[in-house]
Structure formats: structure tokens, C-alpha cells
């Protein structure tokens, strides 16, 4: 694909823009911002990746991963603003996931220890972990609010914070991991997953593309479950003080 053909792809931007204008959807500004941002961001990433791949220097890989994690923390922390120290809790979660998955992949020689593999796979893992963290924090905040009465009841009967928060915590962990599990059940039936499509378009054999896609799917399953569990168990103590008092203000 050259610059001219890529320019023609802008037709796919013009269509929704015209429709938005015709039907007064008031989405034109957001669409233009989204398009401009994606062009700049992806081009920038493309050049940076090219540089990192060419240099194959460990420090550059580490810098890329640090930037990815920092961006993911920045994005997810807004959803957990009510939880004390959410920034470092997210950082610990993402770093743990990254170390665990890359450790297994490289340790068992499933993928080579080169930037070409480490960076894209890390991107998928951290990106997925970030989405999971946002899903979890959204649900956990709502569950804690909705079950405040039950939480206080358990405390009032002599329960510990861990016992009092058990139900909201488990419900949130389950709710946030279900989409990942469900989407994997129907994968390939409705749409071909991104990694696989990309590899096929780039000329890889479909069977090889499937093998790589399966690896990614299994990775994302681990990512989903560990993100929710780890973030959950790191987050709940912030809702209580040392006297085992619930820090949410009562609604009345």
C-alpha cells in the first residue's frame, strides 16, 4: 500500500462525516479529532517501532514498555479515582502481568526474545489489561455503592473488611472477565481476530496465523483473570481504615 492508496482510504472518513452532517448527529468534530489523532499517533508509533526494531537495544524495549504501562495507568486511573493509591495499584498490576506473560513466553521459548515479538505482544497484553482494569473498577465502584448496606451489616456483625467486601469483589471480578471468556467462545465464527487477519493479509499461511492467534487468546485469558483478581485484592483495603470502618460516606 502506498501513500496514494492510503489517501483513498480517507473515503471511509468522508462517508460518516457527510452522514453525520446530513443527519445532524453532531459528531463531526469528534470524528475529525479521532482521525487526526489516529494518523499522528500511529505514524509516530510506526517510526518509533522501526527505530527500536533496527537498534534491538534492550533499553529501548524497556522504555517502550514503560511508556505503554504509564499510558495504561493514566487512562485507567480516572475510573478508580475513589480508591486511595489507585495509580500504584494499577502500575503493580500491569507490571506483574507483563513480567508474568513475557516470562512464560520467553522462558519456555514460545516466542523469541526480540523487539519484534516483545513489543506487539506487550501492547496487546497491557492494552487488554487496561480495558479489564477499567471494566473492573467501573463495576467495583458501582457494586460497593449498591451493596453499602450489606457491607456495613457484615461489619456490624463482627465481620472483617475482607468478609464484608467479598460479595461485591467477587461479583466485579466475574463481571469484568465474562466479556473476554464470552468473546472467545464465538471467535472465528463471526469475525476473524485482528492479529490473525493482519498476518493473513501480510502473507502468512492461515494455519500459522491461527496458531499465533490461539497463543494471543490464551494470553488474554490469563491477563483478564489476573488483572481483575490482583487489582481487586489490591484495591479493597483502601475502602476501610485500621479500625475496620467503611470509608464510604453513608447516603442519608
Amino acid at each position: 500500500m502506498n501513500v496514494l492508496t492510503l489517501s483513498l482510504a480517507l473515503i471511509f472518513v468522508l462517508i460518516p462525516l457527510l452522514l453525520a452532517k446530513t443527519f445532524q448527529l453532531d459528531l463531526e468534530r469528534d470524528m475529525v479529532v479521532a482521525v487526526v489523532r489516529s494518523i499522528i499517533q500511529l505514524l509516530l508509533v510506526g517510526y518509533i517501532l522501526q527505530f527500536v526494531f533496527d537498534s534491538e537495544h534492550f533499553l529501548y524495549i524497556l522504555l517502550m514498555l514503560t511508556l505503554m504501562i504509564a499510558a495504561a495507568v493514566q487512562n485507567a486511573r480516572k475510573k478508580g479515582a475513589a480508591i486511595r493509591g489507585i495509580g500504584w495499584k494499577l502500575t503493580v498490576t500491569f507490571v506483574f502481568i507483563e513480567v508474568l506473560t513475557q516470562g512464560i513466553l520467553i522462558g519456555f521459548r514460545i516466542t523469541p526474545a526480540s523487539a519484534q515479538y516483545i513489543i506487539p505482544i506487550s501492547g496487546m497484553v497491557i492494552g487488554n489489561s487496561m480495558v479489564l482494569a477499567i471494566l473492573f473498577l467501573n463495576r467495583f465502584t458501582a457494586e460497593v455503592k449498591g451493596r453499602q448496606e450489606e457491607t456495613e451489616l457484615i461489619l456490624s456483625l463482627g465481620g472483617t473488611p475482607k468478609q464484608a467486601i467479598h460479595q461485591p469483589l467477587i461479583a466485579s471480578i466475574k463481571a469484568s472477565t465474562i466479556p473476554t471468556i464470552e468473546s472467545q467462545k464465538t471467535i472465528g465464527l463471526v469475525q476473524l481476530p485482528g492479529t490473525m487477519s493482519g498476518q493473513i493479509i501480510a502473507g502468512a499461511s492461515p494455519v500459522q496465523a491461527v496458531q499465533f492467534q490461539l497463543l494471543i487468546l490464551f494470553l488474554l485469558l490469563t491477563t483478564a483473570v489476573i488483572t481483575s483478581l490482583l487489582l481487586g485484592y489490591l484495591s479493597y483495603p483502601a475502602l476501610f481504615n485500621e479500625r475496620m470502618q467503611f470509608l464510604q460516606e453513608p447516603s442519608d
Partner: protein
Amino acid sequence: MLPDPLVPALRFHRVNYSASGVPILKNITGIFPKGKITAVVGPSGAGKSTLFRLCNGLRPPDSGEIYVNEKPIADYDPPELRRKVGIAMQNAPMVDGTVMENLELPKKLQGKRLSEREAFQWMDLVGLESRFLHHPAKELSGGQRQKVSIARTLVNRPEILLLDEITSSLDPVSTQDIEELILRINGEFGTTILWITHALEQAIRIGNYTWVLMDGELAASGEISLLRSPADERVKRFVKGEED
């Protein structure tokens, strides 16, 4: 003959509490006598429910000290304090599951079990038919849920029982049932009872002692008879308003 001096089960000393910067309880000093039923009365928003949450250790006072059996509550392990000072909440919240699961909850939190026989004994005490044992607790009527809630609190065998407006949404028959139950618990176990009620007639009928909270302050406290002829002007107006 002089009356017996009152032994405090709970004692407040210059207790202040505020929420989001708004003072809710102001400089509260007073006692709840051991083995008695104290009716806690006062207009809505006077800070009565908050007072109970402080007694049970669910909320920390901003300043001042609260004593249970003359020991500061800060010196108790929180779960131990909460088992000693049990609370039954206004809307009788139930956890998901059956009546049995709700009654067993206090035991389960300590890693223990409650036998069906014990559960039946508690149900019998609060006047709940045994056929409800395996009934979903959230589907019970308001009165039945209040009974489960009281029984569940009693499973911890508290020395002090806090009852937060537990009859406010009940019909007259259920209210009378609960009143009789409170008198029985106080008589049989010698449990100190603190009862928030908005019905002054009920307070006078059931209580031995009273606290009148007004606008976060303890406007009056003493023998229940003070509600019949209050000395304090504010309390006088409140009692008159409630009678009207």
C-alpha cells in the same frame, strides 16, 4: 431509700462527630445504664442513627471518648466490640439466601456453624414460625425481616443491643410483637437495650430511661418519666409537637 446508682453499660464523654464538615453530634456526654431499656428520641436528623453507629464502632468520633463497660472502645478489637454491642438496623437488610443463611451469618464470620436446632430456638424466641427457615430472607414481610434481623444480631449474644427504629414501618400487630420481644430479651438475658423510636407513647411504654437528642445535642437524659414533664424548653416543644 435511695435508688441504686446507675452502672453505665455505655458512656459518652464529650463526643463530637461530623460528616463532610457538617457537625452531626455535638459534645455528647452521658450514660446508657446497664440492664435497662433506654429510649432514644428526637426529631428526624437529630443524629440518632449516627449515635448508634458510633456505639457499634462503625464510625469513628472526631473527638471525645466512648466507653463500653468503662473500657474505651478504641481498646477493643473491632469485631469483638461489634459482637458485644450488636445493632439491628432500621430497614433490616438481609444478605442473599435463606433465613437460615442469615441467622448463621454471625457464626460463619467466625468460622463456626449454627445448627438447625439452634436456628429454631432463635426463631422461636423472636416469634418466627419454623417453616420460614429455608425461605428466601429477602422475600419476607417487613415485620418478619425485622424478627430475623433481631435474631441474627442476638446470635452473637450481645451485652448491648441497639435497635434503630425497627418498628417504624410495621403495622400495629407486628409492632406489639416486637415490643413484647424487646421486653422479653431484656428480662431473660438482662441485655442492655438502646432503642431509637419516633413514637413517644411507645418510648414511655417500653423504656426505663431516655435520651432526647435535638439538633446533634443531648437535650435531656434521665428516667423515662422526664418525657411526661420535661424541664428543658426545647424538649417540651418537641414532646408537645409529637403529641399534636
